[in-house]
């Protein structure tokens, strides 16, 4: 069958991902170009069906970067979100008791005065509107499937994914080949564990001098709660139960606008016990009185999950490569001590924009090099990462109590100057221990009021993928799940996937590894946590995946 030839379009800059980092870069390029009297064509590719569909975050944000990018955002009428009114921090002792940390004992990085509880998805929708008004072309429903290299090994753009390929891999009736989006500079803003970023980091050995990157999985639900239980502006954080010893992480409960609360749990993905089910940890967390007293009688509206890049400065790779750069969580700009990554992601995008504008039209274009690395190291975003570089490693090394105390000391007594250089050099996936070394966890059954089962949770993430397409989750060795992971780790994919994609089923007397690609909510946890590193996440056909509302 004659398949149509691939077309190509040329831009000055192509940005992968309509997230806070990518959109900030797009806006900054256009704004600065206009000021400098230059003409710069920018396009943004977004695999979600609309901008915001795949954006998933807590979130309490600092407006520092937004204030720089759009100084009059407030006067112009942008309703950013709910201003923070109060901070509370708890240590959950067990399923019913909690201790509140007094204000002075909370590390300063976790005070939220002047911050906002926002929907980052809605923030991105607003940024996209500004970007389009500035002349940026945004293409939702299009994946950046692969990078394009020129003959000198420089990145010269991305190839969008083919559409209409059948499950057998052959072109179907609606087959449309992807396009080559060629650009002088490619900005990778795919978020945590972007598949293109992962490949580029490996290809150019960008992480050769860094510690391995560390990740968490973040769950979140949006609940509509009774008015009497809603305290707008209240920000609650905490740690402890139900996470067992050795498991890092913490919960959040944010009282947003419209009588909605954002409740979630982040679990570090370096946990050792293969029987852990992060989903079930989150579901049972909600039964704790500190959370249940807010949620009871309410209605669950949305559910989702996404992996988080939390390695901080020690795990930050080199950011530039010939022809482009990594920004936001694709690089790892999240400030873990504040558990905030949006402001630093936005700033990294803005700096990338400045670096590109400086380079465009000069000899640098040939090699695709910019001053991005140097400019980033001079920024307040880098300074934040520098000051907080030990926060994550302290918690990993010393646990939540001593680690927390170490961080408090570093911040309060030593004014934020890191005392030591704490290293955290074991890869998350390598931390998993054999199933035989741990006791199986008997999670409680969901009660259908506060806690729910996985499938009905995936249902309210509004996830949909075109039925007839190849499975986007690739196994390097198809025998490993049953022959290796199952006996050694009781195939933990069945548990760490928040969407029930992976199952071990008995068929005709044999155990088989079933991949329900349709359920995938694009969180990337499997790519990170598979002990055999055998699963590679690739983007499914554009437009598929979750459709998050105001997450």
């Amino acid at each position: 069958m004659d398949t149509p030839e691939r077309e190509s379009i040329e831009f000055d800059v192509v940005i992968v991902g309509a997230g806070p980092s990518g959109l900030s870069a797009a806006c900054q390029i256009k704004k600065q170009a206009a000021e400098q009297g230059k003409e710069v064509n920018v396009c943004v590719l977004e695999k979600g069906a609309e901008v915001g569909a795949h954006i998933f975050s807590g979130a309490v944000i600092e407006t520092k970067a937004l204030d720089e990018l759009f100084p009059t955002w407030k006067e112009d009428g942008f309703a950013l979100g709910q201003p923070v009114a109060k901070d509370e921090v708890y240590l959950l002792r067990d399923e019913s008791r909690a201790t509140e940390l007094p204000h002075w004992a909370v590390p300063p990085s976790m005070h939220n005065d002047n911050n906002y509880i926002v929907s980052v998805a809605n923030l991105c929708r607003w940024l996209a509107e500004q970007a389009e008004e500035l002349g940026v072309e945004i293409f939702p429903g299009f994946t950046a499937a692969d990078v394009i290299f020129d003959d000198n090994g420089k990145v010269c753009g991305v190839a969008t994914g083919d559409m209409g390929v059948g499950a057998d891999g052959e072109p179907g009736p609606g087959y449309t080949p992807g396009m080559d989006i060629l650009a002088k500079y490619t900005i990778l803003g795919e978020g945590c564990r972007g598949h293109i970023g992962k490949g580029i980091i490996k290809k150019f050995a960008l992480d050769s001098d860094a510690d391995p990157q560390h990740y968490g999985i973040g769950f979140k639900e949006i609940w509509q709660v009774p008015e009497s239980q809603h305290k707008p502006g209240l920000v609650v954080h905490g740690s402890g139960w139900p996470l067992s010893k050795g498991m890092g992480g913490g919960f959040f409960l944010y009282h947003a606008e419209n009588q909605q609360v954002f409740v979630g749990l982040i679990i570090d993905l370096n946990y050792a016990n293969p029987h852990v089910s992060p989903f079930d940890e989150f579901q049972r967390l909600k039964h704790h009185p500190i959370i249940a007293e807010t949620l009871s009688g309410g209605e669950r509206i949305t559910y989702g999950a996404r992996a988080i890049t939390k390695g901080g400065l020690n795990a930050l790779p080199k950011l530039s490569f010939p022809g482009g750069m990594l920004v936001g969580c694709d690089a790892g700009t999240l400030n873990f001590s504040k558990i905030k990554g949006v402001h630093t992601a936005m700033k990294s995008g803005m700096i990338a924009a400045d670096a590109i504008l400086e380079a465009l039209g000069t000899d640098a274009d040939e090699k695709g090099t910019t001053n991005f690395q140097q400019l980033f190291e001079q920024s307040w975003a880098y300074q934040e990462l520098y000051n907080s570089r030990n926060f994550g490693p302290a918690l990993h090394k010393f646990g939540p109590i001593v680690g927390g105390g170490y961080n408090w000391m570093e911040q309060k007594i030593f004014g934020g100057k890191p005392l030591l250089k704490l290293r955290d050099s074991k890869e998350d996936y390598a931390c998993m221990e054999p199933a035989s070394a741990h006791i199986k966890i008997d999670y409680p059954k969901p009660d259908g009021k506060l806690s729910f089962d996985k499938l009905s949770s995936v249902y309210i993430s509004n996830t949909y993928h075109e039925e007839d397409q190849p499975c986007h989750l690739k196994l390097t060795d198809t025998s490993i799940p049953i022959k290796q992971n199952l006996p050694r780790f009781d195939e933990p994919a069945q548990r760490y996937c928040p969407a029930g994609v992976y199952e071990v089923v008995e068929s005709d007397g044999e155990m088989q590894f079933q991949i329900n690609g349709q359920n995938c909510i694009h969180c990337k946890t499997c790519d990170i946590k598979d002990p055999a590193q055998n699963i590679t996440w690739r983007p499914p056909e554009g437009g598929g995946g979750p459709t998050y509302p105001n997450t």
Partner: protein
Amino acid sequence: MKTLVIASHNNATLSPVTLAAVSAALKIGASFDIFVAGKGCAAVAEEAAKVDGVSAVLVADHDALAYQGAENLAATLQANAEGYSHIVAPATSVMKDALPRLAALLGVGQISDITGVNGEAEFVRPIYAGNAIATVTSSDAVKVITVRTSAFDAAPTGAGTGAITAVDNAVDCGLSRVVSEEIAQSERPELASASIVVSGGRGVGSEENFALIEKLADRLNAALGASRAAVDAGFIGNDHQVGQTGKIVAPDLYVAVGISGAIQHLAGMQGSKVIVAINKDPDAPIYEVADYGLVGDLHDLVPELEAKLASVL
């Protein structure tokens, strides 16, 4: 205000899904005509004329419309759209191909897959794969609408006395032609419109065991359905899949065998009038929506049920 209902048919008989579109038209409230486009479709026109309340039946009988190809059908409808405020069709594959083109030719938006009518300009339709229900209003001069057929009862027929008129302005765009037709042969009723559906799930266990489900379906003269798990496991082809990403059905009787009742499956069949579930897990969520439930091993129960039915049916 006047409505044109586009008939779904095979040139020999009128498909019952047309009557669902007529029900939607009745809710819109205006008088309605039925448009029959095809080749040698006089018998279909006769049936359409008998639909209760129909004013007129317009027939475009032409070679170019033999297979109701989208280009020719849309162009022909455009030529005949004058004077109608609403154009309504059942959401079949043929109509989902032709109606958007008609809407574009008429310069209006299409209101797709409606499940409810609130008025002549306000409709209800599912979005986000059925996870949310949207109420939409249209201010277009002509409302081009496709109707989710499982959401509307069949309108009454038999007492109608519509006047049949032939129209001579069928359009042949000459852009494409049907080369051949391969019709999937099945003696069973079609899944989307059957009044009884028997579905098998993961619990059936194998392709061979699915024969038990088929036997029960045959005994009840039912259509054959399956859950996604059964399809993914290879027990049966995906044209039998019922659920959020398969077919949405609302039969009089739905028998779910070895199906857990995950919400993704329920999304495809919870509109069924009576639901019967057979599963060995007493905690399976299917029992929360089932009117009758049997807990036990389907490999014993299904043959037992089929044998008992054989003696009474």
